[in-house]
């Protein structure tokens, strides 16, 4: 019986690049390392500064403890305001996003100039951060929650408009084709095909956006757009660290609660 020759397995398998790939890999790594070093120098990253400042950080934390619970009844109103800014901003943004998503999707709009115009609007709304929108609206309509609502509305419309358009383009169009061949008109196809197929995913996105907007609305307060953020900015500016820690705790509880609720609802939807 002839003996079969089998190659002995190597003792240690080695991940190896081809010769040209090896040069590219190490070259790329060197460029990346250089980029990182210059970025760290430019941004003045300094462990020494951090260490020397550690004492002051500890001091602030010490002065922030315990939170000033007596302020709790007074801070309910701004907390509600933060929640409401996020809620109204998300709802209005979602409403505005619906026509934008439809108009910028190739599946629905076959007329390229209309689609491109809608995409430009969506791009602009997304590209400008909500904080910048808030600064613009604070200047335009004054301090308070309203500029916060407006800035979240525009940014949310941009984000959901883009994601919605992608969802429409990715959806299964075959049921809609079947309806068209059965004689349904475009509005009927939209109402009985597109809406039921997209609504649950779109609602999931809106919930996710609400969760994000709640966090954003806090930062918006720093530029005068109301809510807990405005209170926090004032407390830190006046060195009222115990009030600031209370506000941070309230924010934490609110964010965790909304995050949990939105995650449960999204799981249920999917």
């Amino acid at each position, binding site marked *: 019986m002839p003996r079969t020759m089998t190659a002995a397995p190597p003792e240690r398998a080695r991940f190896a690049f081809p010769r040209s790939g090896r040069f590219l890999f190490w070259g790329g790594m060197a460029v990346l390392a250089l980029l990182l070093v210059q970025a760290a120098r430019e941004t003045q990253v300094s462990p020494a500064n951090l260490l020397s400042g550690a004492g002051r950080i500890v001091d602030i934390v010490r002065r922030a403890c315990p939170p000033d619970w007596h302020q709790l009844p007074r801070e309910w109103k701004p907390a509600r305001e933060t929640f409401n800014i996020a809620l109204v901003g998300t709802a209005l943004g979602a409403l505005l996003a619906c026509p934008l998503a439809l108009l910028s999707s190739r599946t629905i709009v076959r007329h390229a100039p209309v689609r491109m115009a809608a995409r430009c609007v969506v791009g602009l709304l997304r590209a400008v951060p909500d904080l910048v929108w808030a600064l613009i609206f604070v200047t335009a309509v004054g301090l308070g929650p309203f500029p916060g609502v407006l800035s979240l509305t525009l940014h949310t419309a941009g984000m959901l408009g883009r994601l919605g358009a992608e969802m429409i383009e990715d959806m299964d169009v*075959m049921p809609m084709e*079947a309806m068209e061949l*059965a*004689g349904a*008109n475009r509005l009927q196809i939209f*109402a009985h095909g597109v809406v039921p197929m997209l609504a649950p995913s779109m609602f999931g996105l809106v919930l996710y956006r609400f969760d994000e907007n709640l966090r954003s609305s806090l930062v918006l307060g720093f530029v005068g757009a109301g809510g807990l953020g405005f209170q926090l900015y004032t407390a830190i500016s006046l060195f009222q660290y115990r009030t600031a820690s209370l506000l941070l705790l309230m924010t934490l509880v609110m964010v965790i609660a909304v995050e949990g609720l939105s995650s449960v609802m999204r799981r249920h939807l999917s």
Partner: protein
Amino acid sequence: MNGESLVLSDVTKSYDTAGRRRMVLHGIDLAVRPGEIVVLLGANGSGKSTTLKIASGMISPSSGEIRIGDTPISGLKGEMRRQSRMALGMVFQSPRLVGRRAVLSNVLCGTLGRHQDLASMAGILPRSERGLAMDCLEQVGLADLAAQRASTLSGGQAQRVAIARALAQRPAVILADEPVASLDPDAAEEVMVLLRRVAREQNLAILCVLHQIDLARRHATRLAGLKAGRLAFDLPPADVTDEALAGLYARETMREAA
């Protein structure tokens, strides 16, 4: 509109690719009478799907005419085309249902072409249409699943709902493009039995593309063999020899078509 024939007269189709004209269909003459199931057989690229797409109005023929009864339906545009589509029920390889909607709602989609008002967009349809949709579900044996979500159905059940949706159009003709391709043998048999029954009971003309020769032999009224875009035969199953069928799938068929 039930009780009218589907007629394809001297239908040709050609495509211009890279400056060369490629003939896909060469003068197809085919008539499907009420109550008949005509099964189109042929190798890939022989022109079966093109024939079905032309019959459905999805693509226009290069020449020739398609009629339902005495009414020409090729080359129609706008509202006339939409109305002609009501007379043609389509059943596809996949059921193409809206998975998140109830089975009954999917069947009601077949009636939308008769209602162009705003109420129909909100899903408000006359009670009679609801009754018709339930009747159609009854015919395919799924009335008890009317309230169930379409995404929960098995492949065979979903295809039967697609047939019910086509029936809800009250069509004269049903065009079925490989309706059993994704089904197991038992479900495929069920679907073909159902198509044969609705053809007979509702006097519908059914043109169906199939790849399963045994199913075609058992359920078709006539077999139409397509070879490189030409009609090779159009005969009752008993008159189609195994040699004639083997000829359809011979390798040179593919080369000729290409």
